[in-house]
């Protein structure tokens, strides 16, 4: 589904991301872990054509993302709060995204109704603007908006951060569901090794912009990741 080749991104000659090749098949739940400055968000931004690659390219379903926009109809994402429109209510925001993705109000309502549990009664029908919601609730709205319109690829940057424990557990269920039963390719990044190993079939470790590990998840993966991040002195120091 997503194929990356010879991808580098440098700022003023300083390379922040260098991926020779990586292929993510359709329906895989793919986890990206790494310390700050490892290049996780950079990779996602390149995938969404928000920044231009220095060399190489990413193809999403055979479409080169920085040359055509044809990947947009089947790709959706929630990277940070700048994906929210503060002066809309959550409902209006969902309808707006729905409009852009060819879904009418009834479609959107049907979808959001399925997430009533996840919302925990704090999102729908609150008569509040998104800008007035708490960080966690904003995130919930953003994540659900990324599910509107049956996307085939969903990209979530740090989806677990800022969420309360109950919501984290529910979110894990949602992500697992998407990949296994609906065949959606899900890409997430996280600092929380436990969450990622629980949710993702495959985990890639980035370090200073390069892939250092590419693991199929099994019961030993969490231990392996923990020893990796604890053991290497490089990983301990805060970058950026």
């Amino acid at each position: 589904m997503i194929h990356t080749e010879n991808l580098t991104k440098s700022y003023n000659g300083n390379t922040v991301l260098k991926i020779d090749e990586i292929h993510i098949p359709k329906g895989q739940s793919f986890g990206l872990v790494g310390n700050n400055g490892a290049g996780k968000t950079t990779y996602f931004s390149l995938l969404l054509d928000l920044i231009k690659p220095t060399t190489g390219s990413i193809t999403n379903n055979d479409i080169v993302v920085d040359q055509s926009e044809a990947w947009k109809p089947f790709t959706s994402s929630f990277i940070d709060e700048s994906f929210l429109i503060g002066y809309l209510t959550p409902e209006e925001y969902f309808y707006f995204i729905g409009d852009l993705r060819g879904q009418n109000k009834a479609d959107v309502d049907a979808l959001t109704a399925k997430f009533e549990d996840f919302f925990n009664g704090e999102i729908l029908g609150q008569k509040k603007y998104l800008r007035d919601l708490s960080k966690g609730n904003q995130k919930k709205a953003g994540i659900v908006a990324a599910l509107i319109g049956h996307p085939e690829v969903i990209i979530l940057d740090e989806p677990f951060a800022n969420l309360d424990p109950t919501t984290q557990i529910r979110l894990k269920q949602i992500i697992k569901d998407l990949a296994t039963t609906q065949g959606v390719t899900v890409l997430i990044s996280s600092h929380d090794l436990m969450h990622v190993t629980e949710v993702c079939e495959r985990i890639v470790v980035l370090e200073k912009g390069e892939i250092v590990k590419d693991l199929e998840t099994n019961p030993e993966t969490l231990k392996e990741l923990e020893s990796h991040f604890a053991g290497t002195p490089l990983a301990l120091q805060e970058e950026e």
Partner: protein
Amino acid sequence: MIKHFLNLEWKQYMRSSYWQKNLILNIFIVFFALYFVVIFLILGFTLLPILKDFYPNQEPLTLVNQYIFYYIIIDLFIRFFLQKLPVMSVKALLTTPIKRSTIVHYVLGKSGVSFFNFLPLFAIIPFGIMLTTDGVSGSQAFVWVLTMVLLVLIINYLNFIIESLSEGSELSFLPLIAVAAALYGLDYFEIVPITTLIGDAILGIVHNPILILVPMLVLGLVYSYNFKILKQKLFLDSSLKSKVTEVKVADLSWTKRFGSIAPFMQLDLKLIWRNKRTKSSVFIMVIGLLYGLFFYPQPMYKDLVWIFPFIGIFVTGIFLINFGQFIPAWDSGYYKLLMSQNIKYEQYLRSKFILMVISVGLMFVLSIPYVYFGYKILIAHFAAAIYNIGVNSHVMLYGGSFNRKKIDLNQRAAFNYQGTGAVQWIIGLPLMILPMLIFALVNWLIGFMAGIGVLIGLGVLGIVFHKKLMKVITQRYLNSKYKMINAFSEDN
């Protein structure tokens, strides 16, 4: 402490993409400032001889003092619309061991060295010097200059009080206009002779220097009042926990008739109505509409036909200029979302275009009553409206692709009252002056109707080539996509 603050500000200014990418605009502003300085200098040095020429029987100092009242009123007006209290991002500083009062004193002190306060000095000091050549003693001239400086500072802080009082209300400028009009009326109909009162007061200070304590006291009062209201605002919960406003949902389904751009139209209308900053540009339309009243009723403008299109462009295009120049920065807060969503740039831009066209049409209809001052005005306004739709709207959209400054709709920064500065008006000038020049030239060479014809022709040309122009503009936006995303995700 002050040293730290100055250091922070310097870095904030020099490192913002706004400064780096808008060098030309900055140079332009410097020239603009220099221009005013020169004008004021000339005024300061020549005022005395001129007054002596025209009123040989009266003391120049007495004469000038009588006009101080008008100066105060005009200055307050200009400041209200152009000057804003210096913005400082205080959130990060509140938890550091800096006294709150230091921060407030700093912000207030900084406003004291504003250009608006320096400019009058260029006229006041030369005039003071000239006074000494005219028989006024050096010490008296000095006291007069000092009084004027105090007066300027009083106006400075008074303005911030007015701004903070009117901040919450939507028609924020109405109270100011009402008060000014009332004062002017009292004076004009000689109910209370304010001009002579203020004139006498200043003259009194000049003759009894001890009375200078009075303006000093007033300055102290307005300063400490400012201090009080600012310090109250300087708590985290007032900037973090903004008032949660109950949503008023309006039915916007009528926009569906615009087809594929309907979602964007709805978004734009909500954008305008739900954010303070954009809302003010709607209310500025009211001022724009009344702008013609400054000119048309006066007989001296009756024959100045060439100025009609200028006013016409302003009246019909005020929303276009105000709203248009911040496209696409209005959407800067969620620009990444738009760029990764399934949207067509052209639809996004066309929604803005249609919004501007509607505003021009509306303003033209509302300005029809100006026909009372002559049918030529109506014709000129019509031509200006067509020109706005055909030319200026496209120029605005094209210019927007050079926009690199993020707009914070949520107004998280403390002390941000109006968010509009002098720059905004300077940008609008070429849009108004160019058609005026074109018209004036043709009007002078051939005649009135020919000039009107040229303006309409240019507008129609723009409308005919609308699709082509939009293609060019869209391409321009696509080309600067990455730069815009980058600039908009920067803070400040």
